[in-house]
């Protein structure tokens, strides 16, 4: 047996198909060695090479006057005015968190923070979008506690506030939780840094932790299905050190601001190889690196390990020519390992030497241009049938008040305070709107009057039942959430969490979701500035392959020109008038109510009218900025009645509303149905608000008034009058998460 034949047979262990291996042989005109095959496997993995998803990305709008940096760099950057920019990105750490939740989540935070400060931005907020399985199961409890501990361990120590996010529960995530972390950083325009090697003759500087054997093959691991064997992959999970990262953060920012850095990138997935390889590609140049110079944590490490280790807290810096010593001196202050390990060359190859021999010599282009696969998607018949299911036979419950407390107590809806109080959400003294107080977090920008708002959103049930409309709805909800705090939506990052794209029904979901995001982003003027793809989120249960609900998490950033003109969800006192901007829901399709109360995941998702969505957003922003309201809340899971209750609980103030809706609409749809383009507001100024809303030309309804110690909702036409005490609602809302955390 020749060595090449052996390698070809083992292509799968490098994450390559035999076709891909053959393609590699053809492209380089020779047989690769094992190191080269492994490097190609990592670079062509979904995590690094996006081979299944990249062909779809061309649909995304990526430009606009607000975009300072679009996709392709470590993070996107938007202009917020006054010379300030916000770098932001979301990334997943799903597979590591499934195997080792504490370190999986912790290094998820660490990794995304490095992407932000690699742009020259000081990280100033983190949001976590977390999805778990059945809330009653011991595994969920284990995973939730571990993930929360991991985020707290890393985020609290490094001193970046965790300001928001989502935590939801659904059986499809039972074995495969989702941990998506979004980070934002603030920078002056002139400090914007890039991940490039710059020009020929530049040196390549390694800084940060030593390289160990942890996280080996993480990119390939993240691009395969989870199985019991994954437990044996535990060495593929990296271990994080927030203290080291804090030093790296300060050192990197100091170096960038000192003007001595020509290029910078963190070593994330596929470690040393992907960072240097991508930087070389952006520069259109080759490099040579001496692997003997890589600082190691243990003796006897071989090139494969040196190249692909995903040890945390490591960066590549390329000094400005002539400023090499200045950079090294500056890094020495932070007592970091600093080594010059290579240089930029006039050739176009990625060349590595070890013990005096060339051990890898591959074209930079080849490594960075993974083969692209456009697959054929076919909708699952089973899901289509669920969507088309006739819901007219679903009975309206007799006690609609009990439904309200049941929904508020559902872990997906219930208060997440027991979680976020474990996160330092105020360090850096910028957090104006804290977690749980509103639909988005708001941070002030010191030295300006502005605020930055951020949210992460996705309703996976919608995406499951209708990938196009559901993904578009995630964008719309994110924009609406920003409007509810008084922020103009600017741009998004997306984290596309899907199952195995080789399955036509999964590829269908991915393809349709991408189109939905693209169209909604176009309509709402929120370009895509970057993101992350996590495929193969599925596991085997018995003989069945269980894919997660498709979950394209949308992270959106917006700006408040004047941070004092903002809103939160809590009612601010009695005697105010409540309005619904937008229209009542008319269906129970795809609702949390239908799932929680009737055990059905079925029906059509709510119709999305993006023109109306924009009008409702504009109206809310107008009211907040005109000082007509400081109280706004989006209607999401649980519909109108749950949203009103959340406002009452947050403000410890009751309310009384009357829904004069036609009796042709079911009472449970009016109360708990989910519809888009709806925002609830409370105002002390009825006349001013109605005049403003009329001038804005959006439909609105006066619902009732605030005050008292109950949430009372009357539907006179339906002969329904439900009234629940505030204390009962508060109890239902605030106890479940503490119980799950244990």
């Amino acid at each position, binding site marked *: 047996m020749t060595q090449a034949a052996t390698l070809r047979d083992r292509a799968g262990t490098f994450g390559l198909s035999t076709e891909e291996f053959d393609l590699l042989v053809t492209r380089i005109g020779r047989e690769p060695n094992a190191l080269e095959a492994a490097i190609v496997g990592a670079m062509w993995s979904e995590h690094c090479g996006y081979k299944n998803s990249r062909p779809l990305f061309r649909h995304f709008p990526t430009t606009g006057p607000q975009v300072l940096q679009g996709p392709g760099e470590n993070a996107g950057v938007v202009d917020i005015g006054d010379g300030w920019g916000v770098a932001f990105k979301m990334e997943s750490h799903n597979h590591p968190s499934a195997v080792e939740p504490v370190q999986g989540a912790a290094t998820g935070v660490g990794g995304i923070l490095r992407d932000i400060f690699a742009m020259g931005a000081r990280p100033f907020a983190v949001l976590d979008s977390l999805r778990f399985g059945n809330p009653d199961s011991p595994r969920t409890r284990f995973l939730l506690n571990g993930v929360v501990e991991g985020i*707290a361990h890393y985020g*609290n*120590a*490094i*001193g970046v506030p965790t300001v928001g996010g989502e935590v939801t529960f659904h059986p499809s995530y039972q074995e495969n939780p989702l941990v998506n972390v979004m980070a934002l950083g603030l920078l002056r325009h002139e400090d914007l840094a890039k991940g490039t090697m710059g020009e020929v003759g530049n040196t390549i500087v390694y800084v940060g932790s030593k390289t160990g054997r942890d996280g080996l093959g993480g990119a390939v691991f993240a691009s395969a299905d989870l199985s019991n064997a994954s437990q044996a992959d535990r060495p593929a999970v990296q271990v994080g*050190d*927030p*203290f*080291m990262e*804090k*030093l790296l953060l300060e050192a990197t920012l100091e170096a960038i601001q000192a003007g001595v850095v020509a290029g910078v990138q963190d070593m994330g997935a596929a470690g040393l190889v992907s960072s240097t390889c991508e930087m070389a590609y952006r520069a259109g140049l080759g490099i040579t690196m001496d692997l003997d110079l890589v600082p190691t944590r243990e003796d006897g490490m071989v090139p494969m390990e040196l190249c692909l280790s995903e040890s945390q807290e490591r960066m590549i810096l390329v000094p400005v020519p002539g400023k090499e010593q200045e950079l090294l001196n500056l890094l020495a202050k*932070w*007592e970091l390992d600093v080594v010059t390990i290579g240089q930029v060359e006039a050739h176009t190859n990625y060349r590595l030497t070890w013990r005096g021999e060339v051990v890898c010599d591959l074209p930079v282009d080849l490594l960075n241009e993974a083969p692209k696969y456009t697959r054929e998607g076919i909708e699952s018949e089973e899901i289509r049938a669920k969507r088309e299911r006739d819901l007219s036979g679903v009975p309206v419950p007799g006690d609609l008040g009990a439904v309200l407390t049941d929904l508020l107590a559902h872990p997906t809806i219930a208060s997440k305070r027991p979680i*976020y*109080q*474990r*996160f*330092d*959400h*105020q*360090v*850096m*003294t*910028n*957090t*104006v709107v*804290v977690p749980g107080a509103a639909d988005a977090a708001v941070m*002030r920008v*010191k030295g300006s009057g502005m605020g930055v708002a951020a949210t992460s959103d996705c309703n996976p049930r919608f995406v499951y039942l209708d990938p196009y409309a559901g993904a578009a709805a995630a964008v719309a909800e994110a924009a609406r959430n920003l409007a509810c705090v008084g922020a103009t939506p600017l741009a998004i990052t997306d984290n596309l969490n899907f199952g195995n794209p080789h399955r036509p029904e999964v590829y269908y979901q991915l393809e349709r979701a991408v189109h939905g995001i693209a169209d909604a982003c176009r309509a709402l003027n929120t370009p895509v500035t970057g993101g992350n793809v996590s495929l193969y989120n599925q596991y085997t249960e018995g003989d069945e392959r269980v894919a997660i609900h498709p979950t394209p998490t949308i992270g959106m950033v917006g700006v408040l020109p004047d*941070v*004092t003109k903002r809103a939160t969800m809590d009612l601010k006192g009695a005697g105010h008038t409540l309005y619904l901007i937008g229209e009542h829901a008319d269906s129970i399709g795809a609702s949390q109510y239908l799932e929680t109360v009737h055990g059905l995941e079925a029906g059509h998702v709510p119709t999305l009218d993006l023109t109306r969505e924009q009008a409702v957003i504009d109206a809310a922003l107008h009211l907040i900025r005109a000082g007509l309201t400081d109280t706004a809340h989006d209607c999401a899971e649980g519909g109108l009645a749950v949203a009103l209750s959340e406002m009452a609980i947050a403000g410890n103030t009751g309310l009384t509303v009357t829904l004069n809706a036609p009796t042709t609409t079911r009472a449970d749809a009016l109360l708990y149905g989910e519809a888009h383009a709806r925002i609830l507001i409370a105002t002390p100024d009825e006349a001013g608000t109605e005049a403003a809303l009329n001038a804005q030309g959006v439909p609105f309804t006066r619902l009732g008034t605030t005050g008292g110690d109950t949430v009372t909702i009357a539907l006179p036409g339906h002969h329904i009058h439900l009234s629940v005490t505030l204390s009962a609602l508060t109890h239902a809302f605030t106890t479940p998460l503490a119980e799950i955390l244990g």
Partner: protein
Amino acid sequence: MKTAVIQFPGSNCDGDALHAAQLLLDQDAQFVWHTEAGLPQGTELVFLPGGFSYGDHLRSGAIAARSPIMQAVKAHAERGGYVLGVCNGFQVLTESGLLPGALSRNRDLHFLCRPVHLRVENTGTAFTGAYTKGQVIEVPIAHGEGNYYADPETIARLEGEGQVVFRYVDNPNGSLNDIAGIVSERGNVLGMMPHPERAVEALLGSEDGRGLFDSLKGALVSR
């Protein structure tokens, strides 16, 4: 009031401390790096900020307490200069012997970030003169190791001498006697777990921490 904010590797409330000091005490307040041997000429207040100095290795505050700059801080305190240690800064003060006692893990073993109510127990110190005795103020906490402990004799002495200046109304972490903040015997060194520097602007939810900085200004004038 000339203010020096000490920066240890791993400090993460250093920027917040500097921001509050510049806003309320000294436009020219500056950072001092842990390897420095001395404080800037004329330093009146040393602010030891919160964070995870040296990554909390060994014990919170233990390594920072032995850093070069702490010799200068001790000398400053011995001269009667003001020292304010918040959160990790409090831990550094107990580790360096400038304040008695120790801070161990919170009662429920979890990090806790939320606003708490504090009762001002002694208004006769340089840090609390602007408050009224018994006043309840709202200041955020953010720590995993804020559970104050000292031996019974020390606790008795602290209580007897009026060195307990802030007490939790609703104890969040298991601290003995609900202790949130104490001063040294001379009253010129204050250590507290809650973050007054996070409560000096209405925009961020509470201005109740301002009184501490106003007190220091007043103390300097009357000195």
